[in-house]
């Protein structure tokens, strides 16, 4: 009798394909996720990228080495300084330039300030993803102060074109160091506030701990890097393991996920690593500011960049992870090939692996904890 009530041919059960994006509040840009769901449970995720593809690598084949710098800015627009720095380091490796000390110190200070700014956005938007709005505005408020510093430094607030191959475009403005230290003094208690408001909140922990666990070996196999990998307990930071620039001079720790609230490598760990890294960055900035030497920042700027034929692979620890610039030169002033290994590209590729079996809300949280920037993924 009951069998007749339900006509199975009419009422079908099955998976639903949900298109999250390209326009969606939580995809952090124009990312599209094809989500196969069974009710709220996600069974398969297929990220579709390329909506922000701006032909960075093709551009590079038409532009001289100096002119590429503004375009690297636009790859990771939340950590432009890191992109500049990574590219510059690769080109300098190719040119074999020795930099003045002052340049290196300035670069480190700027890069770490940028790391703070970038992590503030990452942490804030992660809060937004799990529904907490106030932490986001607080972090944006603090980031604004970093951007103010950058504005006095080079006149721009988002896309700087500041770090060049061979040096930096301008010397530090007067009082920059004082203002930076002021900012750090102001900033330390703000992290505590953030922790009280968000990090230790019970709902936040419920939402993020034990969710989207990324085992370290899977992370390495997928090429995940940066805070996302360190959240899984892998102590790997290029600043420590392969110190470039002058990072070997500074004393700082590499925070890794410890699974304090759940399992090692869960979403909460990835989030908390970023919070801790901000403190470490502040530590580095203080040391660098104390030791900042004098000198001319333009001493090593090459008149014309025309490297010998050859190639170089430069690695750099950006806010999102391991940026690589693979530059092939054929002896002209225009590179033959510039390939950018973008960290968020690899980080995103692991999304489908770690978020299957979780709910839609968790997918958002996991995506937020990977801290992707679409400009960098699509290039």
């Amino acid at each position, binding site marked *: 009798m009951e069998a007749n009530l339900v006509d199975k041919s009419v009422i079908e059960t099955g998976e639903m394909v949900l298109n999250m994006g390209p326009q969606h509040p939580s995809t952090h840009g124009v990312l599209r996720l094809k989500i196969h769901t069974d009710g709220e449970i996600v069974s398969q995720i297929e990220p579709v990228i390329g909506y922000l593809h701006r032909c960075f690598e093709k551009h590079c084949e038409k532009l001289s080495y100096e002119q590429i710098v503004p375009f690297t800015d636009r790859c990771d627009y939340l950590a432009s300084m890191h992109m500049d720095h990574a590219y510059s380091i690769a080109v300098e490796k190719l040119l074999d330039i020795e930099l003045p000390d002052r340049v290196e110190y300035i670069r480190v200070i700027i890069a770490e300030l940028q790391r703070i700014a970038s992590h503030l956005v990452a942490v804030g938007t992660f809060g937004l993803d799990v529904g907490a709005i106030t932490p986001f505005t*607080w972090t944006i408020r603090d980031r604004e102060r970093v951007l103010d510093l950058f504005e006095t430094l080079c006149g721009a607030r988002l896309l700087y074109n500041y770090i060049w191959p061979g040096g930096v475009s301008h010397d530090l403005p007067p009082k920059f160091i004082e203002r930076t230290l002021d900012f750090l003094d102001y900033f330390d208690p703000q992290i505590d506030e953030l922790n009280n408001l968000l990090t230790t909140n019970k709902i936040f922990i419920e939402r993020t701990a034990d969710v989207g666990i990324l085992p370290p070996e899977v992370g390495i196999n997928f090429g995940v890097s940066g805070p996302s990998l360190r959240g899984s307990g892998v102590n790997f930071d290029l600043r420590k393991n392969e110190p470039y620039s002058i990072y070997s001079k500074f004393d700082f720790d590499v925070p890794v996920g410890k699974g304090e609230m759940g399992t090692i490598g869960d979403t909460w760990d990835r989030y908390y690593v970023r919070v801790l890294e901000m403190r470490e960055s502040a530590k580095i900035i203080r040391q660098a500011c104390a030791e900042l030497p004098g000198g001319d920042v333009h001493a090593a700027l090459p008149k014309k960049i025309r490297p010998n034929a050859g190639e170089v692979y430069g690695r750099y620890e950006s806010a999102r992870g391991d940026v690589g610039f693979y530059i092939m030169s054929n002896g002209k002033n225009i590179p033959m090939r510039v390939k950018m290994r973008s960290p968020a590209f690899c980080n995103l590729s692991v999304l489908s692996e770690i978020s299957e079996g979780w*709910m839609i809300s968790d997918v*958002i949280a996991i995506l937020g904890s990977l801290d992707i920037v679409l400009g960098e993924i699509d290039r």
Partner: protein
Amino acid sequence: MTSIFDSLQESLAFLNLDLFMLLSLISLLGGTVIFLVMAVNALVAVYFERKVSAFMQDRLGPMEVGILGFKGGKKFWGGIGQTLADAIKLLTKEDILPKSSDKFLMILAPFIIFSGAFLTFIGLPFAQNIVISDFNIGLFYIVAMSSVGVIGIILAGWSSNNKWSLYGAMRAAAQIISYEIPIGLSLLLVVIVSGSLHLGDIVQWQETNRWFIFHSPFAFLAFFIYFISTVAETNRTPFDIPEAESELVAGWMTEYSGFRWALFFLSEYANMLIVCIVASIVFLGGWLSPLHLINIFPESWYILDGPALGFFWVSLKAVILIFVMMWFRWTFPRLRVDQLMYVCWKVFIPFALANLFFVSLWELIF
């Protein structure tokens, strides 16, 4: 306790209308009053919410729009005309119905939600004699009517023909129906103790004894269960999973715009007002002054209780509760849908049932 309905009937008697006409006239007047209350509430509450959120987030909130050239003061009252401007914008916006939506249901849904809130106001006293119609079973009526809205939500989600809307509707249905239970159980406590479903009688009980929240430790707990459940019932953070703007875009409201969306908004804030007024009447002594917290003061002190001040006390208590709701919203992250159910079925309902049992014992013993 006389109702507005009764007093209007008396005062309009001189018109010598036949009964049908008289009743229609009174209903019309009453309806207008309710609508005005809802509209003004939404205007004020939205402004209030914006300012509260802005100050909690180190911002200033709306500061530019004024009314007739008056922009308000420097800080809190700046941009006083913002919500009015928003309302005008919403009413004049293009009305969009998606091509493949179920048009009839989609048009119908906001009105169902709206009438759910609207009808609830009929039995809701704002003060001793300020109630449209005074029911014997006022509490029961309010609880029943405030759950009508969920039908509209399901219709809205279904008819939009949008997967996000559908998710929102399903979540909303599950959530609202679940949270009806702890709400009902907490209110049942009051009914057991005071022995009446009539809101006037419940306040009467509190006048002779004390605020109900201080009746016993269990009543104290019941108040919190009730209050937090109503936060969930009105779909507000941390329980706003049907809307969940970071997950479901805008949940069941995704495809709505303009006037229809404004109706949703109106009813959402009206629901907030309703649950807060019910909480203040049932648990916090209604139109009684704070002196009734514990009735130990001499008789002459109770001048604060006059009928004129009743409205003031009710609204003050309601406003404080609304502020707390906003405070929640701008502090907490959002729960996940299964955790929401966990909180309801594994925390609130066991506690509410235990409460019920112990309060009954309490009544037997004391």
